[in-house]
């Protein structure tokens, strides 16, 4: 990449290159659901609200303030008047209203973010600075509407939202901190700083997301200075982290993550209409069995060996990073690692071992669980092997079913246990919602929003209460009760909260905002803080020069090889000419 850098150096532009492993699914905010794409949309378009990088509180975005009516059903947002689209037009409430209305009326436009508006009754823009949303039911998440607001005057022209990918003409009109100027599938996404961004222009002139299918290649690129930042997917491996820690000019950011990593149990898949399906092992319906299984999982070893310290032992459902909602089991409640007690529990539940040490099910056959794992996730496979050995000591067999695409058995309920994990948003509503009975599919043929078919009356009650509670503190208390209930059910066993392990070059990036600012991650924040805040290092390009030497040396090597081969040929020909016969 020396050539570009030199070109960049010529006009003095500072470029921040980020290595990503995901390819863009779509650049249309109405279709995109992958992390990379939504991150890019964060940079291209303002959302109504944003999250405070310190504590993830809702703070103004396109909206400067908001309030709800006493009946909790009407929300009024004030739209800022200092945000302009990159083509010079003013961004107004009309744009926001149009965006929401489109999603409410056009199925294609609802593809990615339809859930945000499903409870909306009506959205209007009485004036350019006023946006009014009328709800069907109270909804506590109205300051967490992660929906990119698009310019109406541009998007009006789109015919079919389910097909339009927003990647044909550049630059793409937006009002975020960056403007999309170029995209090539599976190669790069290129953005230019929006100098007139209302919060202030980013410090880098350009931001490039470069695609590396292979994480090792991305890390190597970082070492060489080809890229300034590597996020890893989902994070760097322990080996990579420790290797990079020792490298010059590289900082490894090992921050508490926003994900939980859990072992989900199939509670007997069913639909809202009561129809059962799937073939989860019946023994798992016994809470004691579920508890016993989890008690035989040595979470410490998992943290030590699998994550090699780059994770925190799992407790409650929501990671400690989201402190208001973080909950952990009390001493009496906790299912601590205790294989002996686990065996006892199983015995109590009536699952005894036979002479060969195999535990028998109610049908008299040895129990063996199918554990669904993601073939692309090394942690699943590693933990799976530990599970195999730990549970075999209980007399329970395990087959690891590692698939590229786990959704089919998952949605069909044809598994016993599965590795599960979600990224949690500052507002926990979504991750809580996926365990409600309402999230079950309507019929076995449908798809529900449910994670693993959990349906529990008490949990549902708690969920409903927190959603209607607009007071943050009270709401947090209810959320914690819900987490406690979930823990006791034993269907979702959180094993760890993996850290976000990422790295960047300090000779290219002087400083960058993490989120939470104290100890937080950089890639995939809820907001544009990292890239917007990143400050270029003055030295600029020690790495650049090295890679241009690369080209020079490479060129010389190539030339020498070619000339050498040519000479060799000529010589050989000469030599051949006077040989025998």
């Amino acid at each position, binding site marked *: 990449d020396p050539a570009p850098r030199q070109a960049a150096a010529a006009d003095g532009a500072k470029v921040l290159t980020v290595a990503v492993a995901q390819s863009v699914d779509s650049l249309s905010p109405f279709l995109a659901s992958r992390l990379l794409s939504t991150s890019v949309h964060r940079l291209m378009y303002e959302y109504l609200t944003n999250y405070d990088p310190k504590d993830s509180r809702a703070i103004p975005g396109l909206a400067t303030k908001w309030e709800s009516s006493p009946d909790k059903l009407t929300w009024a947002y004030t739209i800022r008047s200092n945000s302009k689209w990159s083509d010079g037009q003013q961004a107004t409430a009309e744009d926001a209203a149009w965006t929401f209305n489109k999603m409410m009326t056009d199925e294609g436009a609802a593809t990615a973010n339809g859930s945000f508006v499903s409870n909306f009754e009506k959205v209007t823009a009485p004036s350019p600075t006023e946006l009014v949303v009328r709800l069907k039911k109270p909804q506590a998440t109205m300051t967490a509407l992660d929906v990119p607001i698009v310019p109406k005057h541009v998007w009006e022209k789109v015919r079919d939202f389910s097909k339009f990918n927003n990647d044909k003409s550049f630059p793409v009109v937006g009002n975020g901190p960056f403007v999309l100027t170029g995209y090539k599938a599976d190669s790069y996404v290129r953005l230019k700083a929006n100098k007139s961004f209302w919060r202030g222009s980013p410090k880098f002139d350009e931001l490039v997301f470069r695609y590396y299918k292979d994480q090792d290649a991305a890390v190597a690129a970082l070492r060489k200075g080809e890229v300034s930042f590597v996020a890893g997917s989902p994070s760097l491996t322990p080996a990579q982290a420790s290797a990079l820690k020792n490298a010059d000019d590289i900082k490894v950011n090992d921050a508490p993550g926003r994900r939980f990593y859990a072992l989900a149990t199939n509670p007997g898949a069913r639909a809202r209409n009561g129809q059962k399906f799937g073939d989860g092992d019946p023994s798992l319906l016994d809470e004691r069995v579920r508890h016993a299984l989890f008690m035989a999982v040595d979470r410490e070893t998992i943290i030590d060996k699998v994550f090699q310290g780059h994770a925190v032992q799992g407790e409650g459902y929501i990671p400690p990073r989201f402190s208001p909602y973080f909950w952990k089991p009390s001493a009496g409640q906790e299912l601590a690692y205790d294989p002996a007690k686990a065996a006892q529990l199983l015995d109590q539940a009536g699952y005894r071992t036979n002479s060969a040490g195999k535990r028998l099910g109610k049908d008299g056959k040895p129990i063996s669980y199918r554990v669904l794992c993601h073939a692309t996730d090394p942690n699943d496979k590693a933990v799976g092997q530990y599970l195999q050995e730990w549970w075999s000591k209980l007399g329970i067999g395990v087959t690891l079913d590692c698939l590229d695409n786990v959704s089919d058995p998952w949605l069909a309920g044809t598994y016993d246990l599965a590795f599960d994990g979600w990224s949690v948003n500052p507002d926990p509503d979504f991750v809580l919602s996926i365990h409600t009975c309402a999230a079950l599919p309507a019929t076995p043929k449908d798809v529900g929003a449910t994670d693993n078919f959990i349906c529990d009356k008490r949990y549902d009650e708690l969920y409903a209460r927190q959603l209607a509670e607009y007071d943050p503190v009270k709401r947090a208390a209810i959320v914690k009760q819900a987490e406690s209930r979930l823990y006791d059910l034993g269907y979702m066993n959180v094993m760890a909260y993996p850290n976000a392990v990422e790295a960047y070059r300090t000779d290219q990036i002087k400083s960058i905002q993490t989120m939470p600012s104290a100890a937080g991650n950089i890639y995939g924040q809820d907001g544009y803080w990292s890239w917007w805040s990143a400050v270029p290092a003055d030295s600029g390009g020690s790495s650049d020069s090295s890679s241009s030497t690369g080209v020079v040396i490479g060129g010389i090597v190539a030339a020498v090889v070619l000339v050498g081969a040519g000479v060799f040929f000529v010589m050989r020909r000469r030599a051949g000419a*006077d*040989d*025998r*016969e």
Partner: protein
Amino acid sequence: MSLLDVRNLEVTYADGSAAVRGVDVSLEAGGKLGIAGESGCGKSTLALALLRLLPAGTRVGGEILLDGEDVLAMKWGRVRAVRWAGASIVFQGAMHSLNAVHRVGDQIAEPILLHRKATAAGARTRAGELLEQVGLPAAHARAYPHELSGGQRQRVMIAMALACDPRLIIADEPTTALDVMIQAQILRLIAGLVTEQDLALVMISHDLSVLADTCDRLAVMYAGRIVEEGPARQVFDDSRHPYGKALSGAFPRIGDPASRFAPRGLPGDPPDPAAVPTGCAFHPRCPVALESCSVDDQRLREAGAGRRAACVHVPEAAASPSAVPEPEASPHPGPGAGTDGAGIPVPGPAPSSDATGALGKPASAPPPLLSAEGLHVSFPGRHGGDTARAVDGVDLDLRAGEIVALVGESGCGKTTLARSLLGLLPPTAGRVTFDGRPLDYSSGALRTYRKRVQLVLQDPSGSLNPRHTVYDAVAEGLRIHRYGGDERAAVAEALSRAGLRPAERFFQRYPHELSGGQRQRVVIAGALVLEPKLLVADEPVASLDASVRGEILALLLRLRDELDLSALVVTHDLGLAWNIADRVAVMYLGRIVETGSVEQVLSAPRHPYTQALLSVLPDAPGEPVVLAGEPPDPSRISAGCRFHARCPVLASGEAERAGVADACLTRDPEILGGGGEEQAACHYAATSSTSNPSELIR
């Protein structure tokens, strides 16, 4: 100074086989030297050595003086200059010696461009001229080798050899693998060119008779050495070396009662160049070998005027013209021979008068054992071409205890007929009857039939599965037919019948460990073991050396006598028919055009085609009648008499005069009896059954 003077040439291949062991020959400018000898005796090696074309790693000793300059001492650059410009070669297999991906014109022009510094256009013109010189249209320069027939390709090779006006042409078996008629064409062409352009010629062949016809002098090679040398005719007619005698004796002289039912051969195998016998290399096979022969090596010495031979029986002083004692009438194993013990009993002279007498009376003859009635076999044309009517209406009878020879040019349908007689090819029309019953083509019936009728194929090496031992090969038939008796004994007996004695010694051998003659015996044993009544032998000796074939033919005769076997012998060689057959059928383009007793057909042929075939035999009396053109194509059979396009009688106007020319062009002649067994399918012959046919064509 001679043009070519080879002195004490020794060639040893990288693997240690001494292929040429001290050869001296010389050739004057314009002279014609023939080199004859069995397969593997080193003829081609000698030819290649002359231009230093032997593979790398071959050791060559001695001197090869070409125009006084030693080829072996030349620098490579000089060798390259001499090649083709000084001496050129016509190689044995023209189909392989031409590069398949270049046009023949370019291949002819290549040496011209290289040696004569001609322009491309000039070379092209010259290539055209050369093609015309060898009797091909100049337009053929644009053809690729595969578009030409074998004969045409051989002509191209000759044209190529002439390209740089060399003074010496070496022709290595230029006619092997060619049809009789084409062979005659090529030989005439070479002879004519050499005389016309005053070239020196070294011609190599395994066929003494061919060389005797073409060359002035003849050298006979054995095991890498020249054992006899002298004026061609003399060496052929009256050899001074037992090997030369055997070799020339192996060529039957048609009409000579001595060779009737008395094929002559030479026992034993050609020597292995990696282990040449001590002493005289020929002594293990020599009928007149002395004790000392296994010790004393023999060198060429004078044996009469301008003749040399390497044999103890030729006295040092080269006195008497016929010093070599005649071996007894029958060949017998020499003292050291019989490594395989393959002794050949003498075939008793056939009861010729009796047999011919019986044959002369068809009415009283027993019903035929096998007969074909109006047999037609056609093949769908390749690449959507016309149907090939390979067998086009054949009637043929074969009686018990009778040997019938089926002769004809290549491609006339002999093999097809043989295969359909065995039910290997279903006939398109007509039928085959065996023992009076028509052939049933159901698989069970065929199996029974094939127990009684056996096939022996042309190529003994190909007919044996290289992965089966001799025992397996012979027992195969027994196993297929679930032979109940003692398999081992049956196999042993069949092998000894076929002259492989003691049989046990051969059981575990693989085909590649046997000589060609032995392989053919194994094949015959495999056929005999089922005790068949009839043997169909398709070119049983075509791929065998002249010296060996006599043995196989003798074996066939003996079996006929011992087992009362009938045989249909398919061959392109009229001499072979003379050697062993009672009756002969001449086939042309899918039809029998003449049939009758051997004596009658071969000494007084009535069909012009038979006459032509006989006339081109190397030592046939009179002027040969060489039919021009290619072997006929069964997918284009002309109307009228199928032979009319090539018929000399029609061409000379004789038919016109006899008033049958119209019929020749329009009417397919029936096969007509000319009295007795003799029948010919010819309008002309029908009009003149009394006149002497061989005089007609002049």
